[in-house]
């Protein structure tokens, strides 16, 4: 009976839509509250450096004198700790992932006031 069983599965699969998505044409929307990418509302930032000290991956760099806040998205491990510890609540997490970049492991251009 294996032939009959196989034919029935083949017919069943032919009637089904594909299991995979046609990726570049259809992108699955990210889940709500998924950890994707850190974004900063720079006018609110006071450059206190708490996020830099607490970051487990040392991905954030801040300088209070020059008023600089940068993040290396390739170093970031998306733990969302900086969002939790930020005293001014200027950091937040987008649910979409960080995009690929043409520069290798470089931080984003400095964000200045």
């Amino acid at each position, binding site marked *: 009976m294996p032939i009959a069983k196989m034919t029935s599965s083949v017919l069943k699969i032919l009637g089904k839509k594909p*299991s995979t998505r046609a990726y570049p044409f259809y992108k699955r929307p990210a*889940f*709500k*509250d*998924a*950890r994707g990418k850190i974004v900063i509302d720079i006018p609110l930032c006071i450059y206190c450096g708490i996020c830099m000290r*607490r970051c*487990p991956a040392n991905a954030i760099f801040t300088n209070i004198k020059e008023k600089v806040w940068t993040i290396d998205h390739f170093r970031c*491990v*998306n*733990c*969302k*700790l900086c969002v939790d510890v930020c005293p001014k609540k200027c950091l937040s997490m987008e649910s979409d992932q960080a995009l690929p970049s043409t520069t290798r492991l470089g931080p984003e251009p400095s964000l200045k006031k």
Partner: protein
Amino acid sequence: MGKQTIIPFGPQHPVLPEPIHLDLVCEDEKVVDVIPKIGFIHRGLEKLIEKKEFTDFVHIADRVCGICSFIHGMTYCMAIEGVMNIEVPPRAQYLRVIWSEFSRIHSHLLWLGLTADAFGFENLFMATWRIREHILDIIEETTGGRVIFGASKIGGTRRDISNDKLKDILKELEGIEAQIRECSEVFLKDSSVKSRLVGVGVLTKEDAYKLGAVGPMLRASGHDYDVRMSPYAAYQELDFVPVVENSCDSYGRCVVRIKELYQSCRLIEKAVAKIPEGAIETKIVGFPKGEYFARSEQPRGEVVYYVKGDGTKMLKRFRVRTPTFANLPPLLKVLTGCQLADVPILVLTIDPCISCTER
């Protein structure tokens, strides 16, 4: 006695992404001795405990392993809670059980897929990983991460799952279980799969005990030992009984893992039915002083966490004994005397996770 040849296996090997190196001493096609070597991906995570605050280190403990990440984070939290005598709220305990079991299902499905790939059954590999994708979606929806959950926190959990969502999860889990049933039929009954697994890599009951095997490797050799039997999280309220097989071979290990998939589904159902309302975390005050051992059952076996604090915000010492490390001596035992062609499948039956062994 024939001429002996040494065949190097790994650290880069097509069948195994894990960087373990084995020098296989062969006589013709038979392996007579094995010399292992690990240490290719040491990251120094244990030393990092001196640089990061003990509350932030949860995120690093989460990343010790890429597959059983949640259980690593949870065990670290359990260790710190033990030092500081923190009472974890019951709802958080149940959430920990639910996420641990999801972690187990996705890890076992991953193992089944890799094993199918190792004995050349590509279709089965894709079928199991397709099921795993549904599990990963549930995990991402409830915790925010696909494999690194990031949901552990000292004193509780970081996120809650709403009761409506828990009911939806149960419905989804029913569909997933039907798919697992379909796939496991092939693993358990197909003659080509059986010919690669039955009677291969026999580890006797005495050897498994003497060499200190853990997890499915131990339970497939007839020992009913599972850390979930000792109370941690909310397992003591869920009538847990370990899965035990007596066949002692690779097929037995496969059966244990498949049965554990169903068992995990049952545990999630029971946990959802019993989960109480209430807070999900206790606030922590002060710094850890003292030392503590915490144990938990990972998909691969028992993991042991040791922490030592001196009353400051950085811990003094942190140590992990991962299940793969405990399973290496039994692996060498089963490899000795096997056929060269069975080496990849035997290395896979311990479900090696070298990156967490080396940390």
